[in-house]
């Protein structure tokens, strides 16, 4: 990792080469220590705090899931899930996880608009999540599951991701970490753990719209072909069953004969058995997509499809001049 830098003194620091695909967010904390009132309770927070620090310091009137919030190791705030919206007298409805705590602010978690926003956004997260909890290794220790239970979700407004044709294959190609993107809520914690904490530069956010996904900076298609050093930090920070350590991927599933996570999804990238040299961060192989295997995950072979969507072109067709709308209906 340091050999490149030693060769060329003028080389930029390694972090400059890391391309996580995410925006350069500004620092978001408050400038000074602040006292804010949350649901009628005065809370003092330190400089650099956001409103979520004040909300978490008390027992708020209503559940604030703040799903993508991590609040440790300088990971986040990503502020993408918007299940932390709260009402403030000063700025209206704001995301608690990324809004600076300013002295004198008044915050309510039970205001109608904020509660509705958290509620709908949680359902929107669920709408794009494979909710087969009984075949998931994170069953019982999943932040999304906890949030849904706390929020007393019985039937999500927009359903859940249960169309097998829409499932992405499970990436079971690494010996150490499994990726199931059908459970990913795009909280970006893994990308930050990989790039900002471990400085490995393996994972990135890629694509846009519904094609947004966690991918690899080396353009590899599978974990096995990526430059992953298997440190496991991504699996540690993952709030759901999207990134789990191998060996415990079935740890908390409910035994149902013949029904497993693998065949519930139906498509899997398996390990190729190929031996690899030691991983070098940012190593790129030109033919990284050639060797991947795609196998049927079980007896429900109808779900097997060849994955073709590897590029996530940004829709050049939609130039402004045309002023066209999307395909309809």
């Amino acid at each position, binding site marked *: 990792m340091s050999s490149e830098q030693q060769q060329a003194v003028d080389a930029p620091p390694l972090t400059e080469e890391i*391309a996580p*695909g*995410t*925006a*350069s*967010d*500004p*620092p*978001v904390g408050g400038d000074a220590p602040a006292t804010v009132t949350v649901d009628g309770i005065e809370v003092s927070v330190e400089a650099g705090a956001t409103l979520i620090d004040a909300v978490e310091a008390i027992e708020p009137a209503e559940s604030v899931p703040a799903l993508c919030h991590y609040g440790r190791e300088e990971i986040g*705030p990503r*502020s*993408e*899930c*918007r*299940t932390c*919206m709260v009402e403030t007298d000063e700025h*209206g*409805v704001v*995301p608690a996880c*990324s*809004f*600076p705590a300013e002295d004198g602010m008044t915050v309510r978690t039970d205001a109608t*608009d904020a509660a*509705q*926003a958290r509620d*709908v*956004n949680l359902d*929107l*997260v669920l*709408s*794009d999540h494979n909710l087969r909890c009984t075949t998931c290794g994170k069953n019982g220790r999943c932040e999304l599951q906890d949030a849904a239970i706390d929020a007393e979700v019985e039937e999500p*407004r*927009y359903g859940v991701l249960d169309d097998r044709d829409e499932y992405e294959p499970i990436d079971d190609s690494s010996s150490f970490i499994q990726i199931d993107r059908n459970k990913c809520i*795009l909280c970006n914690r893994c990308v930050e753990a990989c790039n900002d904490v471990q400085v490995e530069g393996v994972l*990135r*956010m*890629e*694509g*846009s*719209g*519904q*094609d*947004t996904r966690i991918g690899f900076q080396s353009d590899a298609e599978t974990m096995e072909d990526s430059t992953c050093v298997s440190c496991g930090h991504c699996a540690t920070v993952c709030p759901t069953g999207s990134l789990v350590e191998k060996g415990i991927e079935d740890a908390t599933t409910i035994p149902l004969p013949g029904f497993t996570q693998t065949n519930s999804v139906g498509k899997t990238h398996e390990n190729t058995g190929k031996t690899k040299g030691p991983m070098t961060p940012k190593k790129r192989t030109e033919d990284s997509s050639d060797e991947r295997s795609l196998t049927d995950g079980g007896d429900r072979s109808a779900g097997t499809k060849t994955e073709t969507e590897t590029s996530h072109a*940004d*829709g*050049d067709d*939609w*130039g*402004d*001049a045309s*002023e*066209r*709308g*999307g*395909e*309809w*209906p």
Partner: protein
Amino acid sequence: MVTLDGQTGFHTGCSLERIEAIVRAFEETGDVTAADPDAVVDHGPGQTTFPTPELSGLRTGVREILDGCGWRRPTDPADHEAVGGFVDPDPDAVIDLGGTLDGRGWRDLCHDAPLADTWESVRSAAGDPVVVVNAHGNAADTLLLESAPFEALDGAVALADAVGAERVIVYASADDERAVQTVRDAAANYPDSPITVDVETGPAEYRAAEPSMAIESLEGNHRLEARIRPPDLDAVGLHGRPTLVHTPRTLAHLSVALREGEPAGTRVMTVTGDVADPVTVEVPASETLETVVDAAEMTGAFKAASVGGRFGGVTDDLTVGVKPDALAANDLGSEGVVRVLADDRCLVEFVGQRAQFAADENCGRCVPCREGTTQLAGLLRDVYDGGYDPEAIEELIDVMTTSSICAFGVQAGRPTRTALSAFESEFEAHADGRCPAGSCLEPLEA
């Protein structure tokens, strides 16, 4: 347009052959009226402003901001100087004028807000400020760069000087090649100034115009997504510097106000959609949408207008004023683009396409926009199957509006929200299996 010695002949809708004929006739006779122009205007020699003829599209409104378009040579600084341009104003005078001007368009950091406070905060902030001219994706802004780039540049340089910025960056879509080339040439010809003017391009995608994504693009990020705010770009922008992002329209208003001593008080608006040719006109802010729409020749009977750009509000009421507060009171947008829809257009189809466009083109960062636009398109498709649920649609749009990170998601539900209130019966008819415009149910059943 053929002009000589204070007389100009106007020819409209010319083919290449027709232009050749006009040039030939002029060369043979030396008479600007030789080729039978559609209009002739007599004016003094040395005319510095556009001699407006009585022709459709050109006679509407006034010409303060668009004055140079089509008349002054775009990249010749002498023409801009001849109308009093390149004033070297006192920084305080610039900031003071900012109190009388507002930001034009949603791609402007100060959309519909007075400029002076933001300018003042950037001037007093630590760090080297930057001025970004965001010309991405609006027809009037592209027109200004193509036809009167010095109006935008003059305003930008005066502003940079006033806030202590050493650099102006013009940002435009890579697809607007002519605008990019023209403003590059104009920047190269700009009179000596301590301020550097660079021209950069970003991808043509709609979202690349959003101010924080414009900054991401200028920083060279290979993938564009919105930044969280606050703090906004005026505090932490391009490479962490205090950054102003203004549209060419905003800066042209500043440029004109600097040489005239007062703001023009006009709105530059583009009419597009079911029209023979899209037109960009400038009208006094006291005018209504009707005046603007009348500037273009519609290709069918008027049914509705989508006011405020791609995610504008849909209305059939053109008596609404063009001022931002009047538009906002009617849930219409102030982007300066009015798309007219003829009576064979189906509104359910129209807003469905807008929702699908939003679902396809969003950056993918925040849940209310990424997942919300997808669900919105789904709820609108459900209308065709009899599953019309206006409360569910309104609830979803409310949440997209209150909790999306950037203007893309905040605005994405507006076409549907406004159509639901102005054209409710069309939605109900679709739920009953009938398209009143007869345009979208037939193909579905086939």
